């Protein structure tokens, strides 16, 4: 049986609820309506239901832990095609084992969620550092990036706390998601026009690039090490690495 969800986290939790209710073992839980149908497999459409997903949500909190709920959500942000199923199986195991499930890394379902969640957390942490804001003509600081995982909501809070007296925009160009901060609160939006054309920040970008090249020690040059920390796929939005 394939469970087809709308791709939201609540949708997946609703699917978990339905699987329990129907006493079914789904073979897949999709992220949205685009999926591959294996031959002869039945499909069940899952309508996202806040009451049902809320019950699973609270069940995870009380019977497993708050930490697990966060871990499941982080894993969800990886957008891995199988993450729905991983979440379902993790919850199922967790409801049996309780808190202990968190350390049960020899179990493939636990390891799968753990891996995805860590991948997301690592990328989010990396972007706390390598996200680059560029000042626009209108004084707003604009940062665009193309992360592998859907991490904008994970990092926006950090910048709201840190750069709290300046207006800024974080733009995930891959997913067309923007976090906009006006000095008071963060708003998330999609479908807004890109701002990159209005960048006017040459003075400090030149200074930064100069600093970047001056701080490297020639006789220790090690491009491989550099790439292992700062993968090439991110370079086009990192101004000191742009050609």
């Amino acid at each position: 049986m394939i469970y087809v969800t709308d791709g939201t986290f609540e949708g997946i939790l609703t699917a978990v609820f339905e699987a329990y209710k129907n006493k079914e073992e789904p073979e897949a839980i999709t992220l949205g309506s685009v999926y591959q149908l294996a031959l002869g497999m039945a499909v069940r459409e899952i309508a996202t239901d806040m009451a049902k997903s809320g019950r699973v949500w609270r069940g995870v909190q009380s019977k497993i832990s708050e930490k697990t709920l966060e871990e499941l959500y982080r894993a969800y942000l990886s957008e891995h095609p199988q993450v729905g199923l991983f979440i379902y199986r993790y919850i199922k195991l967790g409801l049996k084992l309780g808190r202990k499930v968190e350390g049960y890394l020899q179990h493939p379902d636990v390891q799968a969620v753990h891996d995805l969640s860590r991948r997301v957390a690592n990328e989010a942490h990396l972007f706390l550092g390598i996200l680059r804001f560029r000042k626009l003509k209108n004084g707003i600081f604009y940062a665009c990036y193309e992360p592998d995982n859907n991490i904008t909501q994970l990092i926006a809070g950090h910048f709201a706390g840190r750069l709290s007296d300046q207006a800024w925009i974080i733009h995930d160009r891959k997913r067309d998601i923007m976090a906009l901060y006006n000095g008071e609160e963060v708003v998330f939006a999609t479908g807004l026009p890109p701002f990159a054309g209005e960048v006017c920040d040459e003075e400090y970008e030149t200074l930064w690039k100069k600093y970047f090249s001056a701080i490297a020690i020639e006789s220790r040059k090690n491009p491989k090490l550099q790439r292992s920390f700062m993968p090439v796929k991110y370079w086009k939005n990192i101004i000191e690495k742009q050609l």
Partner: protein
Amino acid sequence: MNLLDKLQILADSAKYDVSCSSSGSSRSNRPGGVGNASLPGICHSWSDDGRCISLLKILFTNVCIYDCKYCVNRSSNDIRRASFTPDELCELTIQFYRRNYIEGLFLSSAVIRSPDYTMELLIKTLKKLRHEYRFNGYIHVKSIPGADMRLVYEAGLLADRMSVNIELPSASGLKLLAPQKDPTAILEPMDFIRERIQESRELVLYKKTPSFVPAGQTTQLIVGATRDSDLKILHLSEHLYRRYRLKRVYYSAYVPVNDDENLPSVHTGPPLLREHRIYQADWLLRFYGFRAHELLDEGHPNFDTYLDPKCDWALRHLDQFPVEINKAPLEMLMRVPGIGYRMAAKIVRARRVGPLTFEDLRRMRVVLKRARYFITCNGRYYGGVELDAGLLYPLLADKADRKVMAGQISLFG
């Protein structure tokens, strides 16, 4: 001279200082302020040598009254000299910070006129940055050897982290290469800073006191400018961690910048491999419960550059292996080559749920390349060879320089 030239000169002069981390402080922003401090620290970029850039690491000036032989800024060197004004530095820091280029400022300086005069300039800059520019991010400031303790204290109230660089691991080395510097001028402020940190932590329990160097103090040792052995360096580090409660000792492979009969020739490269082994050993001291005398002794004063220090130790203590993955205490798991302290903790948690097989370890992403020779799973040994140092050595030794160049491990510590 324009700002771009100054930045070029004073970053270039600061680059041999290896410390960079921005960890150990946690501070939220204030209304109207700029910045906060993140406890685990954040790296913002990696330069072409693969070292992390977290802070704007810069000298206030490279004009120096000293003529230390190992230093690129020595007074007798004919190089371009420059100095910032406090405002230039503050503006640069704030503007870089607003663009998320950096986590904060690492301010150091050559010694201009006198240690006190230099320290006063640094304090003036930091005061401006904290109070006028309302900068709330991370600041690491160098304590200038020979400066008055009153000034050291004042700087410590403005900074998250302070460091006094030891540079040369022995008094004899210091005498030879930096005859104008006095060893007590290094250890005295270190002790002073340690006492003030402790005091400020104790007082904080009772009332609101200004925090003093909340992220602790660090130092730097140059490796390879003198003849000091790894044993000597490691013993010094251990002493610094225990006696002075340092957060980190950084090691800097000496990059020959000056010609001098007492120094390696400028045509030789920095001893990166040796630096790498010492960093690995430093990790063993700080996180793995090893003592310096276990890793090296008079009969074995330097690390084998082909083996990581933990393998080196394990091969000399084969009587303690193999260890049973399902029974061994955490402290012993951490001593298994290839098993890090995080992985050891994971193993302990996982085996509470059920016994671990070799396959389980693989699934948990334990790196078994080296570990397999030192463990059993439920009594079974998977190493495939006898536990014999002669047989194991070629299996454990680094074959190419590939890994070895990895240099400083840049976790967020």
